[in-house]
């Protein structure tokens, strides 16, 4: 009997398709065996034909359910998490500002801290009266909110590579989530031309340009990417254009195919090397990277 311990059908009632599909998904074994023969021997199926029929039903159900579960790790959850992270950060900073004004006069804080670091110092104090109690409690809420922001960021860093593996690898998980959030979903990001991706998040500047009284923006949120920010200003337009082009390809792969592809990442690295090499060619080549 020990031979079939590792079999997916071990302990599965042949008349229970749900249990069979669950068994396929949870199955693990050190080595394969002649499962069809063993299934017949152990009475799971009358003959090999019946075994393959049951295997077919169980694997189709299991694969469908597993794919569905993986896709529930979807872009909408990522968008909520990103927006919540931004809200938590903005609100924590607002509270910290309010607190500086309040507790700065109320308590003698010797530490040279500002913003949320100041709140963290205040939160450690013991209140002497009812007013201090309120200020210190507020400080604690602001600090908690900062922790929530960090937890949300950690969640995004874990989840973005599952939702959009190529985009997350190329942009970094947080920027990937931001691009998805700005367009409302991975599908709509995948359908945007790369010129739009390039200026996502720079809508004010873009419309000022379209009204005719400003230059066109070179980049939107992708400015936070090292390939743009770390390139000297006169080449940033090229860098942003190249990055946006590959980001939209990555988003399309993620939405329409879903597997990880090496080629697009290598292409971007090659292109960036070429753009950055320009800085070394001019007479003032020594300024490369100085502008960070």
């Amino acid at each position, binding site marked *: 009997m020990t031979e079939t311990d*590792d*079999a*997916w059908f071990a302990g599965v009632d042949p008349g229970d398709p749900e249990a069979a599909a669950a068994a*396929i998904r949870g*199955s*693990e*074994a*050190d*080595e*394969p*065996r*002649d*499962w*069809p023969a063993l299934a017949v021997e152990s009475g799971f199926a009358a003959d090999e034909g019946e075994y*393959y*029929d049951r*295997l*077919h039903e169980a*694997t*189709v159900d*299991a*694969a*469908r359910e*597993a*794919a*569905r579960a*993986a*896709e529930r790790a979807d872009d909408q959850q990522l968008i909520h998490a990103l927006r919540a992270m931004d809200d938590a950060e903005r609100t924590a900073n607002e509270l910290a500002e309010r607190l500086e004004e309040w507790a700065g006069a109320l308590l003698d804080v010797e530490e040279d801290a500002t913003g949320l670091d100041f709140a963290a110092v205040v939160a450690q104090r013991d209140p002497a009266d009812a007013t201090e109690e309120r200020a210190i409690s507020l400080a604690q809420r602001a600090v908690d909110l900062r922790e929530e922001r960090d937890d949300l960021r950690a969640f995004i860093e874990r989840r973005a590579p599952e939702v959009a593996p190529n985009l997350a690898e190329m942009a970094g998980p947080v920027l990937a989530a931001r691009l998805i959030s700005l367009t409302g979903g991975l599908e709509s990001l995948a359908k945007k031309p790369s010129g739009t991706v390039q200026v996502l998040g720079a809508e004010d500047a873009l419309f000022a340009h379209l009204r005719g009284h400003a230059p066109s923006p070179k980049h939107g949120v992708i400015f936070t990417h090292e390939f743009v920010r770390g390139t000297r200003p006169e080449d940033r337009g090229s860098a942003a254009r190249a990055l946006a082009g590959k980001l939209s390809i990555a988003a399309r792969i993620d939405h*329409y*195919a*879903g*597997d*990880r*592809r*090496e*080629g697009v*990442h*290598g292409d971007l690295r090659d292109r960036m090397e070429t753009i950055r090499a320009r800085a070394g060619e001019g007479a003032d080549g020594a300024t490369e990277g100085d502008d960070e």
Partner: protein
Amino acid sequence: MSELPAGVGRRTVAGEERLTTEGEPVYGEPTVDGRRVWDAGRSKLGAMLELGMDTRLSGGESVLYLGAASGTTVSHVADFAGPTYAVEFAPRPVRDLVDVAESRPNLFPLLADARKPREYAGVVESGLDCIVQDVATRGQAAVANRNAEFLAADGLLLAAIKARSEDVVAEPDAVFEDVRETLGEAYELLETARLDRYHEDHLGIVARKR
């Protein structure tokens, strides 16, 4: 030109000789006399057959297909082969693979990582006739070696190796040389050929388990 497996036949479509198999159409491929055209430009195994490589398949084999993606190629394999286990790691293509499998009782889709045979060794049977491999991850030869345990003593490996998955900047020939050497640990190489006419920087390999 070497023999095609039984179940794979040539038909003239729009003035061109094309490979075909018999089965339910799945991805909008053209059909002729109820047979589906097998597009060598979309399938590495199709390209290997089209280029006249001797796959030593005769039809009806039991198959483990690694890297099934949305099931384009594996649907044709299941049309001429016996029990066909299709392993794919990415969830989105598996959704399409499931649709392909539904009309093919001998096709068993598995959402699993081909680098970790433990995940499916309790489902996929031992003593298989053939592994077809088309995975686009680094370490393609190691994947083939690790999965050799599913093959019968003289089982076949039909692999399409993608140079760019191993190293985007290296010369494909250098990559292929490394792959040949690593594969040698578990397989005896029978035939290799570049698939460039249909798939750039790919090497088709026919090998037998040692």
